[in-house]
């Protein structure tokens, strides 16, 4: 048996450590540890709840909208503010754009190098690459001369002897299956996607002032004025700009991302047999289509257990709990307890080794993440969960997309429960949202046309209009999955703040019953050809799109004793 440590896991957001045992060429045991902690909830205590979105937004700069959205929804839920239609539409656009951009960046820049051998691309024949590219898509950048130039750029880079971010990787590993022509095509699209994401995210700058960390959120609405008669507000020019950006996204996703995804997947179909994980899926749902409470959602909420797509359970958020038996926290009534976030306790208590260290004692506490559970069970969240719940709920567009992709790859729905299924679901969701965004732009334009210019519920802005005590929860589907914020307000100030975050669901450690979390579970059975070069472990972990800074943030008043160091 070989014990493997992968730390840092790179090409993710934040700090993740994987320890695994490998026997006879496959993973027999795995532990996921988050190694960074900030304490943002404690920082929030006593502050103005209308400011909270900006604080929580900084939990993550990759999914840079998600904690702002969940936060304003939680506070609105607590104080009873109802954002007007324009605010809902603007938020939907911002959320969808985040998802589309983030998924593309994940595929090309965070995940592709697990499947694409950059060095192999150097031996590609550009003419062969061109015919491959033209056979899968009518994307314009597909000539032999184009790929010749890309190859020359890559060769020039390699010849300089400074490989920079591509140094020391597992190039030439036997697990890389793409022919050189496909590798060169993927490298070309890696670079194109880098340019594309920069352009597309200008949609966020238009609606949020800047990206990362958009700045147009408000409890009760949005700060972006809407007025077709003003040059200082969202107007008809904005509508045109949004439409053009969305058209470019549809184009890139349909003609580059999806064809690449299917092409790459066709060489790695064996990965439809690895990485399934816990087989339970949880979705809060997203994209309200009308205003106010219980609005219908474009992507439905629901729970799937044991991969049973025939039974989509209704979500009951009161069944959510967090456990800390293997987390660096303690609970007042014992660490085997399971607490709902509204009653959650978070007393940090680091019992791991003093750095620098080689190994974690995984029989004890070993992560800064807690273990969230639904009805006592671990749940996977994210694009795969969303696509499965929508598929099982009979969502027409999702069904068409999923069935189309399965047909092209010649595999059945069971292939979805895998590392490859996770990668595919992310791409299909991107296509779905790129198609849908235009509807919200139309809705915004229609609102403008009939003089509906409201962007904010001013009635609840002044804290003197709030009850002495107010409690609320905000739910959101972030690119990486189900996100919940719970807030308690006392006399206009935050008394308590709790988040349960997608990467906490997916990357959390074992629970009190020693049941592994989704990463840990998904890694079981993953083949590892060479323990010195565990690229297969990266494939499955990256398929979840880890976002570790999101996962770790909790601390309560008891943590204050640790703050011995001076405050500036």
């Amino acid at each position, binding site marked *: 048996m070989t014990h493997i440590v992968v730390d840092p896991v790179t090409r993710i957001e934040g700090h993740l450590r994987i320890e695994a045992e490998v026997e006879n060429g496959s993973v027999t045991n795995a532990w996921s540890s988050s190694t960074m902690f900030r304490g943002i909830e404690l920082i929030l205590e006593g*502050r103005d709840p209308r400011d909270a979105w900006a604080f929580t937004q900084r939990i993550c700069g990759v999914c840079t909208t998600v904690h702002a959205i969940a936060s304003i929804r939680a506070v609105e839920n607590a104080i009873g503010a109802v954002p007007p239609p324009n605010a809902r539409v603007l938020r939907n656009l911002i959320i969808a754009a985040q998802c589309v951009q983030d998924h593309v960046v994940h595929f090309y820049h965070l995940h592709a190098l697990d499947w694409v051998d950059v060095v192999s691309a150097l031996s590609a024949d550009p003419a062969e690459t061109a015919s491959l590219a033209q056979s899968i898509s009518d994307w314009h950048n597909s000539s032999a001369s184009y790929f010749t130039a890309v190859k020359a750029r890559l060769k020039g880079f390699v010849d300089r*002897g400074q490989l920079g971010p591509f140094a020391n990787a597992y190039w030439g590993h036997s697990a890389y299956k793409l022919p050189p022509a496909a590798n060169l095509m993927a490298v070309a699209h890696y670079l194109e996607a880098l340019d594309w994401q920069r352009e597309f995210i200008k949609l966020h700058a238009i609606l949020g002032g800047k990206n990362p960390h958009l700045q147009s959120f408000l409890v009760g609405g949005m700060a972006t004025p809407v007025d077709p008669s003003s040059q200082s507000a969202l107007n008809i020019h904005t509508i045109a700009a949004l439409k053009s950006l969305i058209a470019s996204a549809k184009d890139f996703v349909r003609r580059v991302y999806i064809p690449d995804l299917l092409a790459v997947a066709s060489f790695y179909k064996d990965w439809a047999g690895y990485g399934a994980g816990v087989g339970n899926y949880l979705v809060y749902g997203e994209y309200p289509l009308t205003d106010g409470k219980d609005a219908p959602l474009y992507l439905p909420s629901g729970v799937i257990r044991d991969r049973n797509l025939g039974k989509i359970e209704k979500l009951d958020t009161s069944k959510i709990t967090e456990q800390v038996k293997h987390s660096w926290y303690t609970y007042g009534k014992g660490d085997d307890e399971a607490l709902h976030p509204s009653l959650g306790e978070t007393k940090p208590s680091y019992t791991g080794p*003093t750095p620098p260290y080689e190994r974690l004692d995984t029989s004890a506490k070993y992560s800064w993440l807690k273990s969230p559970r639904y009805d006592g069970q671990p749940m996977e969240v994210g694009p795969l969960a969303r696509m499965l719940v929508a598929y099982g709920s009979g969502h027409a567009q999702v069904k068409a997309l999923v069935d189309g992709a399965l047909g092209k790859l010649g595999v059945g729905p069971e292939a979805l429960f895998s590392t490859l299924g996770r990668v595919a679901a992310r791409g299909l969701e991107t296509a779905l949202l790129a198609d849908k965004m235009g509807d919200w732009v139309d809705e915004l334009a229609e609102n403008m046309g009939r003089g509906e210019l409201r962007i904010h519920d001013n009635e609840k802005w002044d804290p003197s209009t709030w009850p002495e005590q107010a409690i609320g929860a905000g739910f959101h589907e972030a690119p990486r999955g189900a996100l919940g914020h719970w807030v308690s307000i006392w006399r206009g100030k935050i008394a308590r703040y709790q988040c349960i975050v997608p990467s906490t669901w997916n990357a959390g450690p074992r629970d009190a019953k020693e049941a592994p979390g989704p990463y840990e579970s998904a890694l079981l059975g993953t083949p590892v050809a060479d323990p010195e070069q565990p690229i297969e472990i990266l494939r499955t972990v990256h398929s979840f799109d880890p976002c570790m800074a999101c996962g770790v943030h909790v601390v309560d008043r008891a943590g204050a004793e640790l703050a011995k160091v001076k405050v500036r």
Partner: protein
Amino acid sequence: MRRTTPDLRRELEARGVTRRDFIGFCAGVAALLGLPKSAGAAIASAIEHKLKPSIVWLEFQDCAGNTESFLRASKPTAADVLLDLLSVDYHETIMAAAGARAEAALEAVRATAAGQYLVVVEGSIPTGANGAYCTIGGRSALQIAEHLCKDALAVIAVGTCAAFGGLPAAAPNPTGALSVEEAVPGIKTLINLPACPVNAENLTAVLVYFLTYNRWPALDRYHRPLFAYGKSIHDACERRAHFDAGQYVEAWGDQGHRDGFCLYKVGCKGPATFQNCPNIGWNENTNWPIGCGHPCIGCAEPQFWDRMTPFYQHLDGVPGFNAATHIDRVGLYATGAVAAAFAGHGLVQITKRAAARHKAKVEAAKAEATAPAPAPEPEPAPAPAPAPEPVATTDKDGES
């Protein structure tokens, strides 16, 4: 790892970047830095003929927002920097290698390029729990920072967390988070690029300046480049005329808000914030926060999470807004309040070696700002700021 002589120009041409595009980019950098037009040619020449310096990007208590911002850089783009301008030998979010091999790449830089490599730090550095609040490869952030920053040619702290402690250091600072300067004293050359996140164009401008002149732009006493942090947002704000005219947003979505009036009354911290957002904007100057109708939250300032909050409360010391009467005084009150808020920090003081000419102007601005509030007599609101100072000509013996 050692280099062969590159021919960047030919590489750029091979991928369709024309000479004209390239010179245009260099001229743009020169303008951003406040350099004379002729400097564009010097920048072009330097970039074309320089070897690629090694750079390592360390992420500690971060959100990767500065990394994402870097990916939005336009001229040069992130791809240009990654492939052509610098050798980015370690960056966890981007690099292909993982685990031990990633760490080996980091150690290789330190071993082979000691004293020659650049370090970018993103995120604060926790000191609580013996460093266990942030470990990478089993080492604490502090251990890694000390290991790498002291032998670096220069350290660039990107974002407010690395520059000033930022969010993790906000009260009550649960993890004992420190800025780079506090955590690793004695760094030879430290450049702070605060803002949440850093504006990518400021980062690339600093890098290109270094590649061109082999020294760093003039810095203030907080190690911030003057070209980007020498002027308040308020002074360069496109809505400044509305401030001076007493035209304010009163409620979100009201007529004034739709007409682009001043956001001061709803909490804008532009008068207390020193950064070049109004000049260069965000995302290739597509927009900026005030441009989308939201107040500045002061994200480039030290301790802004504590000093600039509540975000929607207007700056202290402004006794009511009555546009019909003492509107001139408002600007004075505002800047007075700012000065009070930052008195302990000696904001906008220039390093002693910065050019006297520049210093005199900034000191004058500061003197204006420190006028007691309320002022005995209404004075005109501060005049529009002078054109950017040609910083490069003033730093012959600058910080570097």
